């Protein structure tokens, strides 16, 4: 069975620093079935620890995504779990939005923050803090999440945060990701 010991500790630190969790944002666009709870059979999984023990130096070549990476997942940090699920999936296709939403991962309940994650290889992931329903509250919160993902055992590229808009960068804008170093 996959371990999540490191995930529990790393995201525990994040939660402690960013209390409380928050309800789904009231301004988010609503779609039929957008708070239906996904299940394991629909692709919902808890985040598990990765294999990386020692951080790598920043690779010379940065990944270029050219928009949303195929097969990207949504991630969400709830009070007692870190969940992820594919955005494009049969579950989502059967709902009004045509895709899974972060609120399908929570069943419409509260969460700390959500975003997107693409698995680049078994040791490396790329993340954003982009969610309209469970929004990051600051640049510092994204930093804290980046570190939590890294401490859970992965090399991490992050799309980062734009202080001009006070919002996280997204895959869609196709800018260079930032290497997360601990």
């Amino acid at each position, binding site marked *: 069975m996959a371990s999540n010991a490191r995930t529990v500790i790393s995201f525990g630190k994040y939660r402690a620093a960013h209390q409380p969790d928050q309800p789904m944002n009231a301004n*988010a666009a609503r779609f039929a079935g957008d708070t239906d709870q996904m299940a394991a059979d629909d692709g919902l999984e808890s985040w598990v620890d990765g294999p990386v023990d020692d951080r790598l130096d920043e690779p010379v070549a940065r990944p270029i995504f*050219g928009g949303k990476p195929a097969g990207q997942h949504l991630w969400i940090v709830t009070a007692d779990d870190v969940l992820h699920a594919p955005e494009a999936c049969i579950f989502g296709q059967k709902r009004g939005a045509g895709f899974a939403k972060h609120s399908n991962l929570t069943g419409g309940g509260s969460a700390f923050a959500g975003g997107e994650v693409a698995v680049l290889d078994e040791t490396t992931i790329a993340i954003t803090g982009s969610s309209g329903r469970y929004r990051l509250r600051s640049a510092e919160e994204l930093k804290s999440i980046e570190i939590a993902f890294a401490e859970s055992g992965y090399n991490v590229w992050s799309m980062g945060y734009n202080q*001009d808009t006070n*919002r996280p*960068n997204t895959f869609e804008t196709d800018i260079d990701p930032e290497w997360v170093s601990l």
Partner: protein
Amino acid sequence: MTAVSSADLDKVFGADVAGDTTEARAKNSRREFVRGQTMLAEASPEATGHRMAAAEALYNYGFDTLRTAVEKGQAVLVRERAEPARTLTRYRDALGYAREHLARLTKVPVDDIVRAETPGKISSIRTLERLAIPLAIDERYLGVRDQPNGEDLGVRLRELANGQDHQFRLSPTAVAALAEGAWVIARQRSLEAQLKRATFFVRERFEPDGDYGYPTYLNGYRLAAQTRDLLKLDPEAPIESMRALVSDTLDIPLVQTKMGASFAGATIAHGSERGIVVNIDGANQNVWVRRMTLAHELGHLLWDPAEQLNRLTVDRYDDLKVNSPQRRDPVEIRANAFAIALLAPPAAVDRIVQTANDVASAVYEVSRHFGISVSAAQAHVGNVSRVRVVMPRPGQPIEASDEMRATEDFTVDYFPIGNLPPSVVGRFSWVVARALVENLISLDTAAGLLRTTPDKLDRHTLDYILALTGPR
């Protein structure tokens, strides 16, 4: 186009905001949006980007973008990895600017320009906007959408800066002034559209005239008479203020700037907009010369077909003299004849000559009555009345009256905010102040357009600007 639901209007502009239309709701909304390099978001105290009024964000990016920004927390404005780096580089190359030169013009470090021109890198939107303006890029759409024909102006300026003829070679100062002038012209027009000002659309009333045939000066005279007729001006009365005629009656953007000692003015076509740039250095400090410069540029703007304007026509002081031997280009000959005939209609001049005691007295009377220089009047009298004009040795120089000086004043002498570039002082500042008062643009935008800081734009100052620079 789908109608916007009341619920969506509430969500985007606020539930307690009055207004029957999307535009009215936006105008009455106190909500602001903020732009970064690639995204638009709802404004928050922590956001450092360019803050925009709701009406401004709506005008610039459309309702769907605003709704997305509210629903998702932000909306994508720029999806292409190459942008805005590609646009900045192309426009800088078109003007022939080295990065170091642009750095000097904008006070942006070269390293920051390199970063802004590197695809995939994020820069502060304020840095990007500072780089855009001297390149004549509409900063609102930098990276968002193509700006048709924008680079053509830069290419033409570069050609004029590197031309074979040294006399016509534009200095770096003049190139920078004209590029910025083009930006002011385009932004003024856009703000007027936002204000829904009923502007006088020159293109609807003045059909370009391609007749430069011999004798060319007669075509200039003909078009001057036609202009007075179309504008319902008395066929022979003096024009009290060329500034008011251009800026108020014809609603033509008029930009004053510093271009060095040689060049009098320019007519610029930027995108679909045309405007006039007048040098405040050199001989234009004399009000009579300035009136002639304005009339000459007006001749180009009203009557030259687009291909003649070549997106930019720049005139030296020497070219604007009546009977100028400097340039034999029929386009310039016609504009010169237009200018002098518009200011001093030939029939009226001839009548003064016929009734004067002597030719010299007639010249002084023509100068005083029509507000043109004595040397211009001298040449004009000779041309119109076919008389030999010999002037007595000049005694006390004749100067324009204080009244004429006041009516032609561009508010250069005094403006309630110090140290603004001359290009934004004048009607442009009125349009900006008006748009701010009507909540069509944010305080942040207004300050940026006027190159000042928000704290300088208090209500008292805005009222002063509106009174000083508005249509008279």
